[in-house]
């Protein structure tokens, strides 16, 4: 499809897909879609060289190599403007961006764009995405457990969730809130609602931030700019990730020994 878009706009600089090299999410999402386990052995080793992840990674990197996605970051300082001017045609993002896109897609353009669920490798939509957002947590050592719980309850009411949605397009986590007309009436939210049932979660370890933001992004860029082949990049990525997870392996070993 991207190639089709490309052919339609053969002249001038423009790209079917915007896949910023400083965003790791699309790569992880597509990796999850091909069924890869990102980390293996109880999250103690990187598993990015697995055939499943390699397939997804190579698929996306190919967009850069075929000129279907820009490798630079400096050209697109304003993605909304770039989108409205036709510099880019697709962008993988979340509902928080919808209001801003609405602001830029004015007049003739207003009904010329839509949100969609992610594609999947076998063509059956929707494909998996990652469960984003944040969680409400109560600290075990909190001195105000009662109040904290009350606050969590308040934030979880349908009306609070809708207020949050209105303020900053945060999707409600409470299912009942989705019955509200506010959400049902918004055609741009439909895709996100459908996507909601097809999400996987990320490894829940403190090292994940560093792995994603620092390492995945670094090797995406190296591969995208052709400094490394996909195989090299993923091999190095695993090496780096294994180094990061060394402490975790040690801690888990200690735990096992501690129980003995």
């Amino acid at each position, binding site marked *: 499809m991207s190639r089709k878009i490309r052919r339609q706009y053969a002249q001038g600089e423009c790209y079917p897909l915007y896949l910023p090299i400083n965003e790791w999410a699309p790569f992880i999402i597509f990796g999850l879609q091909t069924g890869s386990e990102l980390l293996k052995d109880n999250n103690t080793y990187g598993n990015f060289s697995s055939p499943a992840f390699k397939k997804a990674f190579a698929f996306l990197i190919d967009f850069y190599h075929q000129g279907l996605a820009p490798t630079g970051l400096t050209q697109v*300082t*304003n*993605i*909304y*403007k770039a989108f409205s001017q036709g510099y880019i045609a697709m962008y993988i993002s979340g509902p928080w961006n919808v209001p801003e896109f609405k602001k830029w897609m004015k007049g003739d353009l207003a009904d010329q764009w839509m949100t969609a669920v992610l594609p999947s490798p076998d063509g059956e939509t929707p494909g998996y995405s990652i469960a984003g957002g944040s969680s409400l947590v109560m600290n075990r050592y909190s001195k105000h457990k009662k109040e904290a719980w009350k606050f969590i309850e308040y934030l979880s009411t349908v009306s609070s969730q809708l207020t949050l949605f209105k303020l900053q397009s945060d999707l409600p986590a409470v299912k009942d809130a989705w019955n509200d007309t506010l959400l049902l009436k918004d055609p741009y939210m439909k895709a996100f609602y459908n996507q909601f049932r097809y999400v996987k979660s990320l490894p829940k370890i403190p090292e994940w931030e560093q792995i994603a933001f620092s390492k995945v992004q670094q090797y995406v860029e190296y591969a995208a700019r052709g400094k490394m082949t996909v195989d090299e990049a993923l091999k190095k990525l695993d090496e780096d990730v294994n180094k990061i997870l060394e402490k975790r392996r040690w801690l888990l070993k200690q735990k096992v020994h501690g129980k003995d």
Partner: protein
Amino acid sequence: MYTKKTFLHILLFISAILTLAPFVWMLSASFMYDGHASVYPPRFIPDQFTLIQYKNLLARLNLARNFFNSLFLALSVSLISLLFNSMAAFAFAKYRFKWKDKIFNTLLASMIIPAQITMLPLFLMLRYMGLVNTYFAIIIPGMANIFGIFLIRQYAQSIPDSLIEAARIDGASEFQIFKEIFLPLIVPILVTLALFTFLGTWNDFLWPLIVLNNDSMYTLPVALANLMGEHTKDPELMMAGSVITILPVVFVFLFLQRYYISGIMLGSIKE
């Protein structure tokens, strides 16, 4: 001779224009509506003048609060360090005591240690004391500094010892000598050092970035850097933020430049 003079001035004028151009563009873009600075060819004069960016920054994005943080911290650090540094410099310049030279030389030599080395333990210390994300996190490490002591001592060497001896004979206490004779004599270098410290604290970035971690505590540079993340697409807004950050230091400098420049010279005197 005449052509040489013309050539020199053409060169100077071109250099001056190049030096000022970024400021001119910054100022101009800060008075534009959204999107009006992202044009080709670039505008050096706003097409439609507006203060909307400043209004947005100060009212909606609460940059006034960050302005206050910066001002308060720069003033507190300057005042406290001025007191501590001048006391220490007084001791080094006007007393003889055991290990004086050893201590002073150790201090001088350690000026080569980059501050970055201390940042991790300092952060952990402040965290243990519960002071991370408070004003103290900036003030405490800034209370005294070696360069300040060195600068004041350098200046104070020229004060004749006889003046101090005379006061002692008159029965003045050591503290009175410090307050009533020493301090008044070193006012120029105190102004200089205050200026250095004020500008240094106002402009500092790495340390506040590490120890301050929410919008209401940020100093201007940290707030600005944080704003940049979300507003890469809004040069007009970011330029207004830069103007707000830069303007106070430019004013302070313009009024006290004589002191600043003499301070650089004194600081560069070789031991």
